[in-house]
């Protein structure tokens, strides 16, 4: 007997015709749904951007096929989803192969291939993957029952359920249940067929064959099996077609939209924010309406599967602020759907008008302002949603209208007037360098190898000034040729941009670029990760493109090349906090760790480290805004100190960012752990390791002015 099976076995001609009719109907509904989605996305502002299509498609294919993003931080769910994904894909391809033969190859070309060894291989393959599908689904179902925190749909933004979140949970169960139903009925079909006909070659479909034997064992064979098969076939077939039609209207849409979003995703999302058009009018600034969002962002909203990874990673949500990135995406999605989507066409609540503003309606301003722009959400989202740029766009319109925290307003005005966030006179910017016992070159006046862009906090905040002086001493000792901009340096603008004042950012950047362009140097050095991010990623489109190195990288260079050498290993037990703007934003994780190793410190990793680092709470301009702490809830920085204390026996909490230094010095006190742990900036430990004690420092500086020294800086 040829190894194959009869398609449409037991169906009369009109039934087959009905079946094809149903296929046409279901495909039509599916297509209509997809069309509605595309029309919804096209409502966005400006066109759909898809540059370098081959690169994007290739990259997306790799990410989707390897499940690289889905597998992060939850290996089990990742593996299970991989099984479901490939199970579904293989089964889909399997059906397509069959359809191809029956509807194209056989009638048009007279070619049949779905038989013999091909059929056997096909059967085996599909059976294995079908089984994998079921296993994967079951694992995911068990996980869902176990109720991990990230699947908690409770709202944190203070709104009670206008949109009943129970529908979300129900939808999730229906989705996974439908897939399970299709998988199980598929196997049942196979089992019934095998129970009916029992061809020996069907051992190549092991699971189906085993099930078939089981059915036969309970007496279900022959005509009974055929009847059951007939009924099950229609059930399975109808369910499958219904599933397909429903794809664009349900959670299942992520199967299409998520890979599309991965392909469309902006690779520098968050790191380099989008500029404004030339001579912007108020309606060009930021986003107020759904139609102000870009088509890509509108697309991304539908990619969300409510996995909750962003919610769990978000420091604002963890601290009780009224922000959950997941809820933000879902609220935006609800509004987009309720304005332009299928749901608005069908008149299903909640409905929105095209001129309904996002903030002040679906989303509260406090939610938008809670964000620290730390990128934890964007980093971990398996489908590539860009929460941070979206929040930033919403902020821009609020700022343009003057709807912002008075403290933030005051700081922005101060920055505009004095070029720094402290309101200090411009002349004070270089004062820290003048207090040193050696001259720090003025990069405006003479060529230097390294132009050190110091930043506001590192120039003007007393604690951070000590660190800048420490770093300067190390560089001087290492005979590094460096200089600073003195009064010509202004706030780099990173946080101004992230707070939503886009034009002020451009103004600051233009000023800095002009000042830097007038200098002669090889590379830019910065000790401030925020400045590092903006100069490296956001200044180039504005005309300032240079090589930028962070001081942790430079220190590593000096140590690794032997320019400086520690006199002895420090032997401290330390933990290291990855700054958001250095780590997640720019991928610099290893250099600081290698520096710690080189100076003989034992590094005990924080539980949340590297790309999972937990923001100190200062980012996104939040350090300039009123505290949102609720009652006794610990501040983000305090949580982090608790986290470090729990590691046990840590001598030093090591920071590499001036804002982190400020936040964590405070947090050590306010969290009640003063005396149990101390903060050191990386430069301070390096200085100690180089054993640059006062005598050594004086020896270096002898020959300069006073020769007296203020002692080992900062320690």
């Amino acid at each position, binding site marked *: 007997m040829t190894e194959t099976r009869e398609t449409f076995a037991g169906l009369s001609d009109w039934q087959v015709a009905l079946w094809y009719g149903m296929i046409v109907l279901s495909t039509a509904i599916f297509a209509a749904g997809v069309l509605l989605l595309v029309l919804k996305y096209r409502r966005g502002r400006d066109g759909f951007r898809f540059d370098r299509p081959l690169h994007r498609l290739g990259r997306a294919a790799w990410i989707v096929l390897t499940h690289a993003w889905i597998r992060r931080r939850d290996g089990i769910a990742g593996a299970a989803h991989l099984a479901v994904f490939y199970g579904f894909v293989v089964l889909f391809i399997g059906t397509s192969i069959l359809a191809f033969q029956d509807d194209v190859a056989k009638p048009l070309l007279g070619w049949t291939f779905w038989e013999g060894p091909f059929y056997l291989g096909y059967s085996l393959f599909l059976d294995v993957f079908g089984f994998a599908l079921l296993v994967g689904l079951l694992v995911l179902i068990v996980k869902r029952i176990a109720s991990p925190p990230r699947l908690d749909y409770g709202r944190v933004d203070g709104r009670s359920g206008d949109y009943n979140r129970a529908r979300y949970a129900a939808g999730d169960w229906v989705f996974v249940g439908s897939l399970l139903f299709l998988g199980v009925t598929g196997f049942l079909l196979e089992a019934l067929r095998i129970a009916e006909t029992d061809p020996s070659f069907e051992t190549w479909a092991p699971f189906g064959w085993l099930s078939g034997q089981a059915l036969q064992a309970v007496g279900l064979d022959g005509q009974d099996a055929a009847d059951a098969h007939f009924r099950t076939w229609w059930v399975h077939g109808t369910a499958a077609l219904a599933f397909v039609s429903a794809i664009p209207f349900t959670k299942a849409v992520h199967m299409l939209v998520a890979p599309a979003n991965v392909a469309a995703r902006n690779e520098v999302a968050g790191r380099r924010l989008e500029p404004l058009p030339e001579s912007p009018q108020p309606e060009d600034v930021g986003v107020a309406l759904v139609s102000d969002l870009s088509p890509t962002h509108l697309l991304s909203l539908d990619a969300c599967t409510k996995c909750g990874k962003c919610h769990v990673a978000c420091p604002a949500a963890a601290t009780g602020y009224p922000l959950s990135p997941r809820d933000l995406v879902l609220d935006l999605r609800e509004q987009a759907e309720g304005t332009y989507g299928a749901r608005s066409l069908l008149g299903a609540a909640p409905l929105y008008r095209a001129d309904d503003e996002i903030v002040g309606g679906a989303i509260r301003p406090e939610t938008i302002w809670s964000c620290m722009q730390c990128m934890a959400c964007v980093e971990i989202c398996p489908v590539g949603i860009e929460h941070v740029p979206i929040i930033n766009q919403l902020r821009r319109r609020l700022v343009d209208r003057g709807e912002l925290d008075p403290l933030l307003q005051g700081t922005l005005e101060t920055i505009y007037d004095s070029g720094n966030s402290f309101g200090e006179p411009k002349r004070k910017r270089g004062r820290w360098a003048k207090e040193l016992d050696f001259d720090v070159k003025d990069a405006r006046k003479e060529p230097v190898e390294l132009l050190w862009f110091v930043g506001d906090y590192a120039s003007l905040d*007393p604690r951070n000034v000590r660190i800048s002086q420490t770093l300067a001493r190390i560089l001087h000792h290492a005979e590094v040729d460096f200089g600073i901009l003195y009064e010509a340096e202004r706030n780099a603008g990173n946080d101004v941009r992230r707070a939503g004042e886009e034009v002020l950012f451009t103004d600051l950047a233009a000023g800095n670029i002009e000042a830097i362009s007038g200098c002669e140097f090889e590379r830019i050095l910065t000790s401030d990760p925020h400045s590092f991010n903006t100069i490296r990623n956001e200044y180039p489109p504005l005309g300032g493109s240079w090589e930028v190195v962070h001081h942790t990288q430079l220190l590593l260079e000096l140590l690794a090349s032997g320019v400086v050498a520690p006199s002895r290993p420090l032997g401290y037990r330390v933990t290291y906090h990855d700054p958001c703007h250095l780590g997640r934003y720019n991928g610099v994780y290893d250099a600081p760790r290698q520096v710690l190793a080189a100076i003989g410190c034992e590094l005990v990793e924080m539980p949340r480290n590297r790309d999972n680092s937990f923001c100190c709470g200062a980012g996104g301009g939040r350090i300039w805004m009123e*505290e949102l702490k609720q009652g006794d809830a610990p501040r983000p920085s305090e949580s982090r100190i608790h986290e470090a204390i729990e590691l046990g026996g840590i001598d030093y909490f090591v920071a590499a960012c001036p804002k982190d230094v400020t936040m964590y010095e405070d947090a050590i006190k306010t969290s009640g752990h003063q005396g149990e742990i101390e903060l050191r900036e990386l430069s301070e430990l390096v200085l100690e390791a180089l054993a640059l004690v006062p005598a050594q420092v004086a020896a270096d500086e002898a020959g300069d002015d006073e020769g007296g020294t203020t002692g080992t800086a900062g320690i």
Partner: protein
Amino acid sequence: MSVLVVTEHLQGTVRDVTRELVTAGRPLGPVAVAVIARDPGPLAAAVDVEGVEEIVTVAAGADEFEGDTYQQALEALIESRRPRVVLLGFTVNAMSYAAAVAAKLGLGYASDVHGVALEGEAVIATRSFYAGKVSAELEFPGAETVLLLLRPTTWPPAEGTGGAAVSSLAVEVAPPRARHVEFTEPAATGDVDITQADVLLSIGRGIGDADAIAQFEGLAAKMGATLSVSRPIVDAGWMPASRQVGQSGKTVKPKVYLAFGISGAVQHLAGMKASGTIVAVNTDPEASIFGVAHYGAVVDLFDVAEELEKLY
């Protein structure tokens, strides 16, 4: 070289600044004090302090201050007496009419003056500019009469009795274009009079946000001190104006003034620098408050507050 002082009074009481003006005016020449009110008699006795040679009453206007009335009265006084120097306190009331008189009559003018001297015929006034960072000597060339508004609490108030002769000047005063209706206390006040406290714990912008207020209120209570604030705290709505120390607030002279997180804007200093012992805690070593404080510490005020809590 006569000196004319204009009395500042409120709700039937003569304010201290008037007596300080007498002290300031004496070295410049014979001092006459004018009292302008609907019924100036009862107030005249209160300004009869040592150093006052003459008291001139002007019965005009209402019981309470109205700028137009005082302007017309002062203009009449100047026309009739031709003083060399006219002294007023640098007060809210003076701001309402003094510069108008100076503009109308072409007088020499300066306010917030903390030093006055005669160099021969010339009047030289010293005042600050740029938030107290610099001082300047002002001259008034060609001015027959110089009108100066002196910074309160700079000079000690004159005391005793002067046995001054009292005269009166009749002035026809047109109905004022800005009329006093009533006084009100701003909401949520009337609780504490900070001018009566022996120890003031005073907080400023350095406390960060409103949540810290409760903490400092508690600390003040433990220490037996009264909590006072600088202007930014009142502007932000965190404490009522009755707690404000400063030029536009209250002038205080407690035995001990603890300034936590106050930078020492000159408007604030004006309200407290006569305090017995001033201790300033501020993380900015350059803060102006250290210029008037007797003791200072460049430390975090919350740290000190925490330590103080333990001691009480």
